[in-house]
């Protein structure tokens, strides 16, 4: 029997969206594939760019800052670990914004689960972060930084970063439909956020400012900290540290999902 759509029997939009995303999972796969393939197709260095990018930034930052932060030998390994996590967050959130703007013409004509573009941006980010593990391993080897067994927890530590990024992306994407200039403002916000988070400098630098509240109130700090602990420090995070990262990221995701799905009804009203 044919599928029935009845606007009088609207189910919970948040759950409806999950069902719909599952139904459209092949679309999400195609969108990820498109992003990866088109990014590398026409450039000579191809996939190498994903690896050269953090490498280049790492080298510049190492030259500039390693003296300043007094972590000479370990700084390159430290910075590349942080950068990989940060790049994931900044690239996926930025990509979801442009994906929403790109998709808005499609949304006006065909029914699609609207979260699919945002989810696929996160998916693309996961593929890219896997590629950037190559320069990470390279730097650890060159600088003779120890390879820890906790590194095997990488997939587990990536989850909070991904969930947090998805949550933030959903909130941003909702706003950008109503106010397109969010897309212009976001890069500035990102820059500020990067400098307020211990990405390029060790966290002890902020520990004494405002009794450390500058750190603790920054949700991204807790998420990236766990990531850095298992990759760079080789420390297994405590249950409370895991709990904090999981709570913050899943909480953000939940808020983002509800906010997005409940607002998406009115997306088409904003031409």
């Amino acid at each position: 029997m044919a599928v029935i759509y009845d606007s009088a029997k609207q189910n919970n939009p948040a759950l409806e969206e999950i069902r719909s995303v599952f139904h459209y999972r092949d679309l999400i796969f195609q969108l990820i594939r498109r992003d990866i393939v088109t990014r590398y197709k026409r450039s000579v260095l191809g996939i190498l760019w994903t690896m050269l990018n953090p490498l280049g930034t790492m080298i510049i930052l190492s030259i500039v800052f390693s003296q300043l932060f007094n972590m000479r030998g370990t700084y390159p390994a430290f910075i590349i670990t942080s950068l990989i996590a940060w790049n994931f967050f900044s690239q996926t959130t930025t990509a979801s914004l442009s994906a929403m703007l790109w998709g808005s013409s499609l949304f006006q004509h065909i029914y699609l689960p609207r979260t699919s573009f945002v989810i696929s941006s996160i998916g693309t980010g996961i593929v890219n972060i896997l590629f950037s593990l190559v320069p990470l391993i390279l730097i650890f080897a060159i600088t003779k930084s120890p390879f820890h067994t906790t590194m095997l927890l990488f997939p587990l530590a990536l989850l909070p970063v991904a969930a947090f990024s998805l949550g933030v992306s959903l909130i941003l994407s909702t706003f950008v439909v109503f106010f397109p200039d969010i897309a212009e403002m976001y890069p500035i916000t990102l820059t500020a956020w990067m400098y307020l988070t211990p990405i390029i400098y060790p966290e002890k630098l902020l520990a004494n400012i405002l009794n450390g509240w500058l750190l603790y109130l920054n949700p991204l700090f807790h998420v990236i900290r766990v990531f850095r602990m298992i990759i760079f420090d080789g420390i297994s995070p405590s249950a409370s540290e895991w709990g904090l990262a999981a709570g913050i990221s899943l909480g953000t995701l939940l808020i983002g999902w509800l906010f997005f799905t409940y607002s998406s009804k009115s997306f088409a009203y904003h031409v």
Partner: protein
Amino acid sequence: MSKFPAEPQSNTAIFLNSVSVRYVLPNEKMGTLKEYMIRAIQGKVRYNSFMALNDISLDIKRGEIFGVLGRNGAGKSTLLKVISRVLIPTQGRVWISGVVSPLLELGAGFHPELTGLENIYLNATLLGRKHKEIEQKIPEILDFAEIGDFIKAPLRTYSSGMLARLGFSVATAWIPDILILDEILSVGDAAFAQKCSDRMRLFRESGSTVLLVSHAIDTVRSLCQRALLLEHGNMVEIGPIDEVSERYQHMIFG
């Protein structure tokens, strides 16, 4: 409209019960958050509401080819959005049986750097198809689109005719429950146009419901039995095509 049913019947494909769409637009264009903030602080945010659709009731049967007539801005596009689930109406009930497939402006969602084949997969998944379904249809799509060896080349190397053929082939590869045609397409040369109309006939014979939207009376007249005439979001007339198109002609030419 006393005979209008309160509930969709067993042979109903599209059912609308006093559907209204009200757009609420800010008085002045406030496209940016900055402007919005400034105006909000000044207390100058005022809204105008405007009815894009007003109390529309429809009952389209399965297999029917139904026309929607009206001038630009009469609410035709809004009606399509409501039926294709893109817009949830402000008031009223929309009930649809089956999958609605709109024939997009051909190639919406195509990517110039991907090959023709990759674009088929991308475009078909956008239309809600599964990977496996697409795989099975590939030979048929390729055969219909007549792209030849170009199918392995990036889309940016295609001529506009090839693009249109590829888009049409993907969009019509599956027999839809409900097909939305926004203006009749003229795709490619005469031979391809013939294939297109053959495919439309196949849909009709297979029981697809077709919603044909146009401001060209002749095309609607030649294909539809019934039609709806819209003006300023209101139903002016619904019924047999001859009566509706006559009324429309009066409306245009006075």
